[in-house]
């Protein structure tokens, strides 16, 4: 029995990770080790994808459709021409009001326009990914995008096509949209992490100045009080102001301000501040919010 083998020292990557900051959302030790390697690799991957996408865009021999099909992440189709409709991240102390009925109606009208003109294939993609009760497809495809560092070309043909159909539905919305959106999404901290109430409670890699990537599609809410996890210290809430994504909420009295962000978004954490927000009953809620600025 070769009980004593010359194994490489596998503790090294973990030692490197200590200064880099705990990767908050992974399991204790093994995941940390894996994540260090995987993150470095995926960072390169993401950068390589970006460079390849840019180079392909300069290749005049390809049609626009071919260039779009081969892209790793979707093109940003949004624009906000009016300075009045272009929002920025709220300043410290700014009250976060719920989205007004008028704003919901405007967004809903564009959603209905997109829905009416969408081909059957996009309707099917939206149904299986988002509206059906069975969430397996959403989890499976989003999980695949994570593994691939956001590069849809690494998925199987069927999944790639579905992802790109959802991309195109979002882009249709982005083309018609004329304003920015302020949206929220929460992330649950792992059990081994303490509750977050102060700056020092934040995972080191989620402090202001750090960067965050969403390789997957992300469901957000325009209303902070509607965002799952808004009332919990076990969750970190991100606030994003962007012209990207598609409103999927309602315009009527039912409270639903869901907004789907495209995959492949990259942000920098601009600040971590306490924010006061309007609750469902019209009262006040207050919580720590991490503001993300698009990069």
């Amino acid at each position, binding site marked *: 029995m070769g009980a004593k083998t010359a194994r490489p020292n596998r503790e090294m990557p973990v030692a490197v990770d200590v*200064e*880099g*900051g705990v*990767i*908050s*959302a992974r399991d204790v030790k093994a995941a940390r080790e894996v994540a260090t390697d995987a993150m470095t690799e*995926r*960072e390169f991957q993401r950068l390589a994808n970006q460079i390849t996408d840019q180079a392909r865009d300069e290749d005049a021999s390809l049609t626009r459709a071919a260039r779009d099909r081969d892209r790793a992440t979707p093109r940003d189709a949004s624009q906000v021409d009016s300075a009045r409709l272009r929002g920025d991240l709220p300043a*410290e*102390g*700014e*009250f976060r009001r719920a989205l007004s009925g008028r704003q919901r109606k405007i967004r*809903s009208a564009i*959603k209905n326009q997109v*829905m009416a003109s969408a081909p059957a294939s996009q*309707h099917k993609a*939206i149904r299986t990914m*988002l*509206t059906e*009760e069975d*969430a397996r497809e*959403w*989890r499976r495809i*989003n*999980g695949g995008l*994570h593994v691939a560092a956001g590069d849809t070309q690494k998925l199987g043909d069927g999944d790639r096509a579905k992802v790109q159909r959802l991309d195109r539905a979002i882009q249709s919305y982005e083309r018609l949209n004329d304003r920015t959106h302020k949206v929220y*999404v929460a*992330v*649950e*901290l*792992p059990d081994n992490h303490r509750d977050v*109430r*102060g*700056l*020092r409670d934040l*995972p*080191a*890699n989620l*402090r*202001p*100045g*750090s*960067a*965050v*990537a*969403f390789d*997957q599609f*992300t*469901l957000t*809410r325009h209303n902070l009080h509607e965002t*799952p*996890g808004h009332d919990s210290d076990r969750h970190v809430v*991100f606030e994003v102001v962007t012209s990207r994504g598609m409103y999927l909420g*309602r315009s009527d009295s039912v409270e*639903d301000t869901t907004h789907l962000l495209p995959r492949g978004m990259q942000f920098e954490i601009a600040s971590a501040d*306490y924010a*006061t927000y309007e609750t469902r009953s019209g009262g*006040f809620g*207050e919580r*720590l919010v991490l503001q993300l600025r698009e990069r």
Partner: protein
Amino acid sequence: MTSSEWLVHPNRSELGPDKPGRNGHYRPIRDARARLPVETCEARIALPRTMSRLADRDGSVTFAGGSWLFVVGAARTFARTYTDVDVPPPFGFKDRGQWWWWDSTTSEESILDGPDAAGYVRKYLERLFPGMPITLSDTQ
């Protein structure tokens, strides 16, 4: 085609761990080792012995941040979570160009920009932590 067709099923955004395939899953992509938080404002509250499990070794709890608004926000969250005190409204916020304060007063400029900022903060903290000694420090 009805307008209710593209409505996201609630289970897509239900709460869950930060894992691949879950909504809101993020991946931090830059080393942030140099970014230590800047905490210029600090409030230290000496907690009674009954709350010692929540206290630091010296029996107090400290709320610190880059501004007094951060400190009172953290303190209020703590009080709401761990004490029976009748928690007052949030310290203050700016809405439509005007500041609204917890004691129902309003102002054009933030009272926290003035020389009495620490005094206002102390008054609020005394309401949150009645009878507990409070120490404030500001190194701005």
